[in-house]
């Protein structure tokens, strides 16, 4: 057996984050600079540089974690490297100025596990994040990679594997939360026409705006997904699998391709896996990035080379999937959970989470939040813990208003429910859903009508057009929402929205249409008064809907503070401001097109928005 390149003792391991976020912040340049400087000091036999997947704290990238010691450096640049290498890696003196300083604090938090962002996280699907080089299969193996596979292939019958997954309580992480063990059982029981094949599919389409959970898993630990799929294949009796991943994720596609090749070379994939006689292989299918292709029947059509459009279910893919054969389709994160469950046992997994929702969930935390990033938390954790403790609250001292979970198919949960525990049932009862893990935080400056309009315009855009309720219905709803945000709403509009929403929910062909009205329905449920104010008073309380704003200049502030600086007049494209330099200025309402530029450019806060 060939010698393993990494089997060497180093006194320091420099874990450079090479997730998409840090890579776009020049992580690879940082890595090269570190290597060069380390060689300059002849430290290359003592200190190793290891590229890893996303650490989650992308906000602070590029990130470097020094092991042992777990010292967390952030926002490093190439010019910091000589000082850092000499001080810390040669002389052993950690450099405080490159460490993480919590907002408003003067002392850094040197150690990763003490940083609030990381403290409450529990890593299961992301168990190897920051710890291995995803392009070295030996490192995955060192962290128990493919151990569960060996167990599943030699010690467990397909039924035993399925019952272990069923007992763990694992539910699909792709949206609907269907029990994974049950799905596997259905595919195992299904009879393939003419005794033909069965398939497993990994859904890595991930189309929710702002979501990057699945991308990060594929980038950080592709072997976890591959191993999960081989175990699933053994359980249901499949001989081939596909990973459907969007082409916009080049790093993920590339790392997955490298991982597949290494797994084949090591005999962990392909013919006669681990000498057990089991054959199974996986191919990558790159998707063109349509939201609807994440829907399972559309995804299957796309893999088959047909137009990525959904079809009515039943039959479900478990009966008739790829090329009409029984097909088990699971989300990236679902697959990544499988090996740990087999390795550590269903009881261990079921010990995490709530009565109905077991294990952990990965969320991408974005929007008006201090710590944007990727977090993995135990089910049952409250929204407050995620937003305040992990997310570090709302920037600029603003008040929290709502959080959108479940992406465009989900809903907005208001601040009154911030102590809601995260599980499938609680989120559904609040009118939202778990979805695949998008979490968009909104502050007091957010207009909820505008938010609903944004998500609806997304789904309207992504609607494949095959069924009328979704194609025409979402268009009609979007027209109404647009009208309301422009101050042209009529009192019946709210009832109209509700009628359209329930018609679409009842009649749309696939989940895209059935869930598209959710953002409108939840904002109507929790923020109805905002809709009413828009329609009745022609006002947007958050001043987001510009057509409803009235811009006016306070003459006192303009003169006393700004000395009539004239900047607003010079920037106004519609010549809607009167006054000349040294005088108090005023907005000519009949000419104003409400673009808001005057308010943006005034350095003295003299432009009032009403």
């Amino acid at each position, binding site marked *: *057996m*060939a010698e*393993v390149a*990494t*089997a*060497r*003792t*180093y*006194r*320091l*391991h420099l*874990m450079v984050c090479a997730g998409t976020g840090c890579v776009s912040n020049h992580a690879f340049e940082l890595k090269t600079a570190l290597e060069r400087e380390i060689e300059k000091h*002849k430290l290359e*036999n*003592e200190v190793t540089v290891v590229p890893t997947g996303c650490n989650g704290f992308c906000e602070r990238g590029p990130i470097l974690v020094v*092991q*042992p*010691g*777990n010292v967390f450096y952030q926002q490093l640049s190439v010019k910091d490297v000589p000082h850092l290498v000499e001080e810390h890696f*040669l*002389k*052993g*003196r950690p450099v405080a100025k490159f460490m993480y300083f919590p907002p408003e604090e003067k002392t850094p938090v040197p150690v990763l*596990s003490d940083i609030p962002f990381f403290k409450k996280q529990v890593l299961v699907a992301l168990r190897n994040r920051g*710890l*291995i080089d995803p392009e070295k299969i*030996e*490192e995955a*193996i*060192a*962290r*128990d990679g*493919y*151990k569960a596979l*060996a167990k599943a*292939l*030699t010690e467990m019958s397909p039924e035993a594997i399925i019952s272990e997954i069923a007992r763990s309580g694992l539910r699909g992480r792709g949206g609907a939360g269907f029990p994974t063990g049950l799905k596997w059982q259905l595919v195992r029981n299904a009879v393939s026409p003419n005794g033909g094949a069965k398939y497993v599919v990994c859904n890595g389409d991930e189309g929710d705006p702002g979501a990057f959970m699945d991308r990060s898993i594929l980038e950080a630990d592709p072997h976890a997904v591959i191993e999960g799929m081989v175990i699933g294949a053994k359980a249901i009796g499949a001989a081939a699998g596909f990973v459907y991943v969007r082409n916009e994720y080049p790093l993920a596609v590339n790392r997955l391709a490298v991982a597949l090749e290494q797994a084949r*070379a*090591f*005999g*962990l994939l392909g013919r*006669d896996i*681990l*000498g*057990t006689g089991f054959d199974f292989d996986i191919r990558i299918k790159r998707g063109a990035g349509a939201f609807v292709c994440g829907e399972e029947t559309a995804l299957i059509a796309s893999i088959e080379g047909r137009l990525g459009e959904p079809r009515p279910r039943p039959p479900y893919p478990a009966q008739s999937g790829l090329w009409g054969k029984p097909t088990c389709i699971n989300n990236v994160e679902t697959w990544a959970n499988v090996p740990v469950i087999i390795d550590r046992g269903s009881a261990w997994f079921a010990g995490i989470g709530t009565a109905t929702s077991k294990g952990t969930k990965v969320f991408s935390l974005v929007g008006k939040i201090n710590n944007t990033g990727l977090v993995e938390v135990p089910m049952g954790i409250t929204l407050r813990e995620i937003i305040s403790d992990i997310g570090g609250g709302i920037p600029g001292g603003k008040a929290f208003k709502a959080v959108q979970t479940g992406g465009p198919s989900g809903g907005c949960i208001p601040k009154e429910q911030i102590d809601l525990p995260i599980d499938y049932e609680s989120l559904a009862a609040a009118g939202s859903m778990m979805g695949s893990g998008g979490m968009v935080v909104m502050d007091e400056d957010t207009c909820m009508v505008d938010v609903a309009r944004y998500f609806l315009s997304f789904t309207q855009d992504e609607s494949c057009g095959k069924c009328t309720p979704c194609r025409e219905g979402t268009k009609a709803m979007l027209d109404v929402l647009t009208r309301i945000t422009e101050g042209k709403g009529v009192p019946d509009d709210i009832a109209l929205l509700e009628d359209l929403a329930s018609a679409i929910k009842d009649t749309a062909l696939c989940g895209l249409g059935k869930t598209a009205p959710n953002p409108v329905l939840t904002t109507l449920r929790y923020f109805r008064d905002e809709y009413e104010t828009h329609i009745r008073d022609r006002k947007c309380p958050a001043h987001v809907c510009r057509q409803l704003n009235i811009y006016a200049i306070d003459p006192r502030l303009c003169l006393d503070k700004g000395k009539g600086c004239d900047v607003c007049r010079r920037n106004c494209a519609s010549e809607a401001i009167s006054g000349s330099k040294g005088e108090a200025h005023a907005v000519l309402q009949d000419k104003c097109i409400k673009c808001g530029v005057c308010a943006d450019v005034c350095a003295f806060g003299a432009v009032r928005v009403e």
Partner: protein
Amino acid sequence: MPKLTIDELAKMRDRTRRTLVPREGGEFRAKINVHMGTCGIAAGARAVMTALIEEAERRSLQDVLLTSSGCAGLCSQEPMMTVETVGKPPVKYVNLDPAKAREILEKHVLGGSIVRDYALGVGSEKTDA
């Protein structure tokens, strides 16, 4: 790369496992801290560190932490290192060279008995990792 069998997979795991131990924040039975100030480096601290790393490699040690820290304030007696074993007071060693360092690793770190000939004193202040 020939294909792995079940046994070979387990062997590979055990073999590569130890290289990853320093990343995982587990417990170490001992910590050896080589003082790497400018004075220490001039007196040969780098050679001491290299010898320790080679020795750790040769013996496949996975629970001994090798670190460096700044000048210990006793520049005339460099190279120096501090050895901390679990539950015992730290011991400072002075005027080291690679051979002495290897001896200390064997007798003190692995064998549990302090090498009095090279020791400055027992019970000096602890070091941070």
